[in-house]
């Protein structure tokens, strides 16, 4: 019987120390310390969107922000891009303070926020890019060729001279992205950039992010798409109630909950499956084609399960490690639609 168990298995508590950064030393691209942001409300206590959030992103890193609706991701992005002021705490982008040296920060960043708004809808895509490029201080000659390149790269060339109001949602989203890239930013803030994009466009987008990473740009990516985060990010931060709960590389996130979540074996017959389901601690047994998956509540339930399987002559087993999505659900809590 081959059971691949890694190190001692415990349910890691929140706030496990962050692993050392393996990126280039020197000034971090993004550093936030104890950020608090309150939104005033009429005749009520203010909403605390950020409650002492701290985060460090190295130069050249692609960093994911994961968290439920209302966690504070957009608020963080807005503070870092100088759109909002923090109520307290500090943040720097490439060493420049976002409050005191906002102008220096703006020279370095590109911002893409999700949604239909934020473009001049009666102007064409090309006209929008030209305007925003000029605001990013791109020299006119360069601007022309870069506009052309981005329209091409984002598959908008055919619609370049149509009014933006005639674009589909995904096309608007791509234009948003092109706008974020027009200034040749060192640090990019992308807030749900693939929202509304079709799968092919989203895949192209991921390729593009890969290229941007190769160019040593830093990217802060807020997303609800776990596959996207898993495939793009060097590290991800889980944000909940305005604080960072944990930061890990997507491949190491499993360690945040439990290293082994269950077992997978070559198809068990119905009788065995029924027996397995009866074992205390087993939460589910599912058979899908040629494999059966057994999920357990905790590591302590393994020995009994393993004995039982050995008794039934099962000799080949694989451990199941939780996916990013599993970790997300465990870390953030199963709160349903509550916000």
């Amino acid at each position: 019987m081959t059971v691949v168990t890694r190190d001692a298995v415990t349910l890691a508590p929140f706030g496990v120390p962050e692993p050392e950064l393996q990126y280039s030393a020197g000034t971090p691209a993004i550093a936030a310390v104890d950020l608090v942001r309150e939104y005033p409300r009429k005749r009520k206590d203010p909403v605390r969107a950020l409650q002492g959030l701290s985060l460090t992103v190295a130069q050249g890193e692609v960093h994911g922000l994961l968290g439920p609706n209302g966690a504070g991701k957009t608020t963080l992005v807005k503070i870092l891009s100088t759109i909002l002021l923090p109520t307290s705490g500090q943040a720097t982008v490439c060493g420049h303070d976002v409050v005191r040296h906002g102008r220096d920060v703006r020279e370095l960043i590109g911002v893409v926020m999700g949604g239909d708004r934020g473009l001049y809808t009666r102007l064409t895509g090309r006209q929008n890019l030209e305007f925003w490029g000029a605001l990013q201080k791109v020299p006119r000659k360069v601007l022309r060729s870069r506009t052309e390149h981005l329209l091409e790269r984002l598959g908008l060339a055919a619609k370049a001279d149509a009014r933006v109001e005639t674009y589909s949602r995904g096309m608007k989203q791509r234009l948003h992205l092109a706008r974020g890239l027009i200034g040749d930013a060192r640090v990019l803030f992308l807030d749900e950039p693939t929202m509304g994009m079709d799968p092919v466009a989203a895949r192209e987008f991921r390729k593009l992010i890969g290229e941007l990473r190769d160019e040593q740009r830093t990217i802060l990516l807020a997303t609800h798409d776990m596959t996207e985060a898993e495939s793009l990010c060097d590290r991800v931060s889980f944000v909940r109630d305005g604080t960072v709960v944990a930061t890990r590389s997507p491949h190491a996130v499993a360690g945040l909950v439990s290293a082994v979540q269950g077992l997978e074996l070559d198809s068990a017959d119905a009788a065995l499956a029924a027996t397995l389901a009866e074992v205390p601690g087993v939460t589910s047994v599912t058979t899908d084609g040629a494999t059966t998956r057994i999920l357990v509540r905790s590591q302590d339930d393994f020995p009994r399960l393993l004995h039982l399987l050995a008794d039934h002559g099962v000799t080949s087993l694989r451990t199941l490690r939780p996916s990013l999505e599993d970790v997300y659900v465990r870390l953030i809590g199963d709160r349903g639609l509550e916000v």
Partner: protein
Amino acid sequence: MGTVRAGFVLQMRFYRRYPDLLVPLLTAPLYGGIFAMIMRYNGRTDLVGAVSLTPFYMSLWWFALFSGGWIIQTDRWEGTLEYLVSAPADFAAVVFGRVGATMLSGVAAFAETWLFARYVLRGDVAVRHWGVFAGSFALTLFAMAATALLMAATFVLARNAVTFSNSASFPFYVLSGILVPIALLPGWLQPLSEAVFLSWSADLLRASIATGPVPHPVRGMVMIALLGTCALAAGYTVLRRILGQVRRTGELGLR
């Protein structure tokens, strides 16, 4: 400079896409015709030239108020304001460039009004004092652009901006003496109209097409420049404060 230019080009493109912004160019000749007829009916053909240029000021004010004054607020509604303030370019320069383009439509309004007055209404609008005309005209455009910047900044936070912009025009026309000569206003109103740059502009422009010398041309131009500069400084200050305020309150992106 590139930023002012970008704002200018943007606004010109808006005029192509939102032709309704150019409505005053349609109404100006109608007003001119009405004013000229009133004068003719009263036997004052000598005044036809002066009154038939009045619609120019009305158009200029209209451009400043409706296309200029609403620039920032519409950016807020469209969701573009957040991107504008996160760009390295100076936001005030973008707004100034756009307001500048609205003043260019003011130049078009002048050309239209003048040609209509001269060839249709047959008024005596020949320019007799070119120096005064050119100087006061340029200063007027500058002061009006500065006023538009001030309104644009103020409208962002003034809750009753819509009411203001819909009702401010007539009092402004009266105070600036473009409808009735200031000398005919009640005495207590007259000092107030001295604080309105357009009253000085209207005096100089009328004098520049009149026969006889222009009274106090330098004083008039200094006043326009001064009042325009005050509006520009106030507009710039209000803009800074308002951007700071909406960044603090988080209202930047709200509609």
